[in-house]
């Protein structure tokens, strides 16, 4: 497989996305909401609005819920006050699956557009007349979606790490995030899941005549999965 061809296809597609504001704007807005606004809200609002969080955490159902958590989680929460526990639960555990969805959220548009978009814009034929093999075209398109998705996901993760630690520092007095489980999640599971989802979407795009059809089908499949 010719790496120069893969790089050329990926670079070209990324450049095209970069030129299309409507395509990359959601990629910026979504992380801003999940990485900046929601964590900040969760950390700061209870402090400033004087929400009786102790009462909320004293809920017997929540106590049962916490008591049935795996020992490793209980160990993490040991010695933390109720507010700290709530933040660790929410920001350290409940937000984690979001970072598995992020790469797919970022890449579905690019991956669905990969071949169907070329076909719609009538550029597919010119691409096929190049000396690239089918597998090079496929891999190039997968990389075009995978690289920005991974960069954005990792960027969001580091942004989230800074926001969470900085905003909660007055409450914890130390840097507590990320929890150990986040490392394999971010650098192993998320890329693998993204690669799988993107490959499936690009395959759907190969078979679909229109971007809309490819996007709808791949979104339905990925989200239902």
């Amino acid at each position: 497989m010719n790496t120069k061809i893969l790089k050329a296809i990926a670079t070209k597609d990324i450049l095209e996305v970069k030129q299309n504001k409507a395509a990359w704007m959601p990629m910026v807005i979504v992380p801003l909401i999940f990485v900046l606004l929601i964590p900040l809200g969760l950390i700061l609002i209870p402090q400033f609005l004087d929400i009786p969080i102790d009462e909320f955490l004293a809920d017997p159902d929540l106590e049962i819920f916490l008591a049935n958590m795996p020992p490793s989680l209980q160990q993490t929460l040991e010695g933390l006050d109720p507010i700290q526990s709530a933040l660790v639960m929410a920001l350290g555990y409940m937000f984690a699956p979001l970072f598995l969805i992020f790469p797919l959220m970022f890449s579905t548009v690019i991956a669905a557009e990969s071949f169907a978009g070329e076909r719609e814009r009538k550029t597919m034929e010119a691409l096929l007349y190049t000396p690239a093999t089918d597998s090079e075209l496929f891999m190039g398109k997968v990389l075009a979606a995978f690289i920005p998705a991974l960069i954005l996901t990792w960027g969001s993760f580091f942004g989230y790490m800074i926001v969470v630690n900085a905003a909660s520092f007055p409450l914890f007095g130390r840097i507590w995030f990320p929890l150990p489980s986040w490392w394999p999640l971010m650098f192993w599971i998320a890329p693998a899941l993204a690669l799988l989802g993107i490959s499936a979407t690009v395959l759907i795009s190969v078979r679909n005549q229109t971007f809309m059809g490819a996007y709808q089908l791949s979104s339905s499949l990925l989200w239902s999965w």
Partner: protein
Amino acid sequence: MEAIVRVDQLSYRYGECLAVDRLCFESQPGEVLGLLGPNGAGKTTTVRLLNGLLVPASGQLTVMGLDPVSQGCRLRRHTGVLTETPALYERLTARQNLNFFGVMAGMESPALETRIAELLAFFELTERANQRISAYSKGMKQRLALARALLHRPKILFLDEPTSGLDPEASRAVHELIESICRQNGQTVLLCTHNLHEAQRLCDRLVILDRGQLLAFGSMDDLRQQFVPGLWVAVEFLRPLPSAAAEQLLTIPGVVQVKPEDKRTWTIRVENESVVPSLASYLVAMNAALLSLMPRQVSLEEIYFKLQRGDRFAHQEVQHEY
């Protein structure tokens, strides 16, 4: 000389539709070969087959001695294709487009940058090289698409409807470009067109197709000889000639056909040039008010329509024939 493109009994189906039907032709290095036919004749399909984009249903084909089916990627390093639509990335600039296709063709810096600059200058696009293609006119896009096809100095150039949708001025510019590029560089060109004037002007030999079938193959002279032998003479009279004169003209040895175009203009087909003086003498002798007499070659248009819609035109000819 060894043929650079050889097609033998080539067939291809799109589902039930036979797009190419037992097609046979060949092309010599350095020639401009025209693939001529109406929409749906199989021209574009043939180009796709020759580049290994489609797998034939049956038949043999070799391009530069390579099998497009099994050696398509290798072959495409040596072919350049101007697709029917410019097929350029509208959000990218001209330079970015050329750079992408150059890398895809295996070109490397700095030779690629030099070649891009050379082509942009040649096609008069240097000043707008860093502008997005979406801001380009159709003619500019077509020139850029042609530049892309020539970028890696292909040995064979496939031009699919190069002037489709262009205004006459832009079409003429593209014709001049094709002529100069091909004649100077000695590239083999396969030109797909349904523009008969374009084909007659640019092509050394022609493959005339209809519904995937080969109707004729050869040079203009071959086709004339084969399908409309002889020479046409356009005769203009100052005063209308009685229609009975047509019968008399047919008695001249070598006169094959007489067609009055209107009251004062007749077209007469003769066997060869040597009949023209006899015809002129006869007309003078019969006191025809002869204004002009102009021998002319049968055009590709006449041959093409004779081949494509033989029955209908044959019927019209019978009506006018004396």
